[in-house]
C-alpha cells in the first residue's frame, strides 16, 4: 500500500460548474413540475439549461481525467481508488432499487391483503366498511376505490402462460439483456487478450442489444398505455410496475451511454490497453448490475 506520488489534482473548476448545473437542473425540474398544465410557463428552459450545462461539464471533466490518465499521472493506488469508488457507487444504486423492491414486497405481502380483510390488521380495515367488496389480488387490477382518478387496467403485464410465451415481450427483453451481459464479457476477454477487433465488435453488439432492449421496453409501455389501460394511474400495481421497470430502463440507458462512450473511445481514439482499461471495466460492471436488477424484476414483477 504505497502512497508514493498519489496524484492530487490542482484546483479545478469542474465541481463548481457541476454544482451550479445541478442547481439549475433541480430548480428547472421543480418549477416545471409545479407548473404542469400551465402553457405560459417558461421554467422548462431552466431545466434544459441545467441538462446542457451538466452534460457539457461532465464531458470536459471526463476528458480531463482521461488526459491525466494518458499522461501517466495515475498511480496504481489512484486506480484502486476509482475501483473502490465505482464499487461503492453501485452499492448505493442497489440500495436505491431496494427501496422500490421493498415497497413492492410490502404492498404485496401486507398492504393489499390487509385491505382485503386478511390477518389481524385486515379485520380493522374491513370493519371500516370503506371499500365494500374489495378483494385482495395480485396483480391488483381493481383498486379499492373505483373513483374517477383511477384508470382501471384491463390486463396486467404478468406471465401469460406457456401458450402465449413467445409473444410476451418481457421474455424477449430478458433474452436480449442476458445476452448483452455475455457479449460485454466477450468484449472484455477480447480486450484482455489484446484483440481490439474482437473488443470493438462485441462491445458494438452489446450497445446494439441495449438499444433493442430500450426499444422493446418502449413498445411494452406503448402496449400498456394504448391497449391494456395500464398506466401510472392504475393503482399500486401500475405504480410499482412503471416505477421499477422505468428506473431500470433509465439505468439501462445510462449504462448503454457509458458503453457507447467506451466504444467511441476505443474506435476513434484507440484508448484502453490489455492491462489498463478501468473506464471500460467500470461501465461493464454497471452493465452487469443493470442485468442483475432485471433478473430480479423479471422474477418479482413479471413472473411471481
Amino acid at each position: 500500500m504505497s502512497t508514493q506520488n498519489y496524484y492530487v489534482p490542482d484546483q479545478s473548476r469542474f465541481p463548481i460548474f457541476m454544482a451550479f448545473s445541478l442547481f439549475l437542473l433541480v430548480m428547472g425540474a421543480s418549477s416545471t413540475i409545479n407548473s404542469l398544465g400551465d402553457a405560459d410557463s417558461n421554467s422548462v428552459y431552466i431545466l434544459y439549461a441545467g441538462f446542457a450545462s451538466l452534460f457539457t461539464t461532465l464531458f470536459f471533466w471526463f476528458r480531463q481525467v482521461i488526459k491525466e490518465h494518458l499522461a501517466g499521472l495515475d498511480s496504481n493506488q489512484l486506480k484502486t481508488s476509482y475501483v473502490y469508488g465505482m464499487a461503492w457507487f453501485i452499492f448505493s444504486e442497489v440500495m436505491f432499487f431496494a427501496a422500490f423492491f421493498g415497497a413492492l414486497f410490502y404492498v404485496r405481502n401486507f398492504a393489499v391483503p390487509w385491505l382485503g380483510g386478511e390477518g389481524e390488521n385486515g379485520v380493522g380495515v374491513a370493519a371500516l366498511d370503506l371499500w365494500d367488496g374489495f378483494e385482495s389480488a395480485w396483480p391488483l387490477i381493481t383498486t379499492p376505490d373505483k373513483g374517477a382518478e383511477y384508470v382501471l387496467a384491463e390486463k396486467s403485464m404478468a406471465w401469460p402462460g406457456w401458450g402465449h410465451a413467445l409473444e410476451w415481450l418481457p421474455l424477449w427483453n430478458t433474452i436480449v439483456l442476458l445476452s448483452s451481459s455475455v457479449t460485454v464479457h466477450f468484449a472484455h476477454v477480447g480486450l484482455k487478450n489484446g484483440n481490439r477487433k474482437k473488443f470493438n465488435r462485441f462491445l458494438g453488439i452489446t450497445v446494439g442489444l441495449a438499444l433493442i432492449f430500450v426499444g422493446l421496453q418502449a413498445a411494452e409501455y406503448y402496449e400498456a398505455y394504448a391497449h391494456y389501460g395500464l398506466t401510472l394511474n392504475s393503482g399500486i400495481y401500475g405504480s410499482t410496475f412503471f416505477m421499477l421497470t422505468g428506473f431500470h430502463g433509465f439505468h439501462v440507458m445510462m449504462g448503454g451511454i457509458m458503453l457507447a462512450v467506451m466504444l467511441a473511445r476505443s474506435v476513434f481514439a484507440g484508448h484502453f490497453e490489455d492491462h489498463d482499461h478501468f473506464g471500460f471495466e467500470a461501465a461493464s460492471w454497471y452493465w452487469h448490475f443493470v442485468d442483475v436488477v432485471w433478473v430480479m424484476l423479471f422474477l418479482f414483477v413479471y413472473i411471481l
Partner: protein
Amino acid sequence: MSAVIENHHDDHHHGPAKGLTRWLYTTNHKDIGTLYLWFSFAMFLIGGAMAMVIRAELFQPGMQIVEPEFYNQMITLHGLIMIFGGVMPAFVGLANWLVPMMIGAPDMALPRMNNLSFWILPFAFFILLSSLFMEGGAPNFGWTFYAPLSTTYAPPSVTFFIFSVHIMGASSIMGAINVVVTIMNMRAPGVTLMKMPLFVWSWLITAYLLIAVMPVLAGAVTMMLMDIHFGTSFFNAAGGGDPVLFQHIFWFFGHPEVYIMILPAFGIVSHIIETFSRKQLFGYSSMVWAMLSIAILSFVVWAHHMFTVGLPLAAELFFMWATMLIAVPTGVKVFNWIATMFKGSITFETPMLFAIAFVVLFTMGGFSGLMLAITPADFQYHDTYFVVAHFHYVLVPGAIFSIMAAVYYWIPKWCGNMYDERLGKLHFWLSFIGVNVTFFPQHFIGLAGMPRRYPDYALQFADWNMVSTVGAFLFGVSQILFLFIVVKTVMGGKKATDQVWEGARGLEWTVASPAPYHTFTTPPKVD
C-alpha cells in the same frame, strides 16, 4: 499532455491560491473541511434562530407571536436544517480535516468529487430556504414528512423540498464514498485496520451507513413526487398503497441516520477522553466491535418509531427486543469511556468538559430511548414532549457537544493558535446549563401528556414550558460566544505546539501547527 504534468508539478510548491477562487475551485481536504465546518455553523445559527421562534411561541399558552401555519414551517425547517445542514456537514468537515492526517494520506482519495459534494450543499439549502417565500409557504409537515401530510395536503413548495433532499442525498453519498475509499485505500504503510484511530473507524462505519440508506431516502421522496404529481398510489390506500409504507421506508433510512449523527461523536469523544486522562483507551477493539454492532443493528430496529401505527403484534415485539439489544454495545462504549478515565491523571480543559458532559447527557438520552423502546410504554409516550426531550438529549449534548469538543480539541492544529481557555470554559458552562434547563423539563411535560408539534398547549404545562424557553435562549445566546471564540482563535492567540496537548497521540499531532497546506505527500512510517 505535458501541460498537465507541469500543473501537477507546480501544485506541490504552492500554498493555497489567492482570493475567492481558492474556495470555489479547491481540491484540498483542509480547505474543503473548513468550508464544511463554516457552512454547518451558518446552518446551526439559522436552524437555531428557528428554534428560538418555536420556543418564544411556547413561552406561554395561547397564540402570541406566529401563525400556526408558520409555526409548522418552523418546526419542519428547524429539523431538516439541523440534521442535514448542521450536524451531518459538521461531521463531514471534521472527516475531511482529520481522516487524511490521521491515516497519513496526502489528501482525500477523490479530491475533485470532494469539492463537488461540498458545493452542492449551499445550493440545496438555498432551495429549501427559498421555499419560505413561495406561495403556500415552506414545507410544514415536520422533518419526517409523513404521507399524506407531505403528499395530499402539502404546499406546492414540496416539489422544491423533494429536489433539495435529492441534492443533499447526492452530497452525502459522494462524501461517504470519498471517506470509505480514502480509508480503505490511502492508509500509510503500517496503519492496519485495527491500528486506525477510533475517529477513522467511526467514520468508516458511518460512511457505510450513509451509502446504504441515503439512496433509500431518495427512493422515498421520489415515490412522494410521483404520488403528488403523476398519479401513482404508493402511499394512498384508495389505490392499493399504504401511508404506513411511507413510514417504513422513511424509518429504514431514518434510524441508521440517527446513528450516522452519533457514531462520529463516539470517535471524537474516545480521542478526547484518552488524551485528557493521559491513559490509553480502556478497550480499543471492544470499541470497534461495539460500533460495528450498533451499525448492523440499526438496520433492524426502524419500526420502533411506529409502534402506534397498528403494526402486527409480532412486529411490535421484534422491534422492541431488537431496539433494546442496542443498549448492550452502547453500554460497552459508555463503560469504556468511564474505565478510561478511572485512575487517569485527568485535567479539565474545555474539550474534556464537553466530552464528559457528552458521556453523562448522551447516556441520559440513551436511557429515555430505552424507555421509549418498551412498546406498551411507548403508547403513552409516543409523539409527546418526552420524545422531543429524548432526541434532543442525544443530538444537542450528544452530537453537537461532540462537534464543539472536536473544534476546541483540534482548532490549535487547524490554525496554530490556542483558544482562550477561560472563554471556552464559560461557553461550556453556559451551554451545559442552557441545554439542561431547556430539555430536562420537557421530560416532565411529555410524561404529563403534552403532544409535540403544536403551537399552543393546555394550561397545566405552562410553568415548565416557560423554564424551557428561558433555557433555550440561554443556550442560543451562548453560541454567539462560541462564534466569537472561534473567530478570535483564528485571528490570533497563544501559539500552539505541534503536539498541542500533553497526552495527545496520533499522526495528526506529528505535523506542524498550523498543519501545512499539504501533509504526508510521502507516507509516514508507522510501526
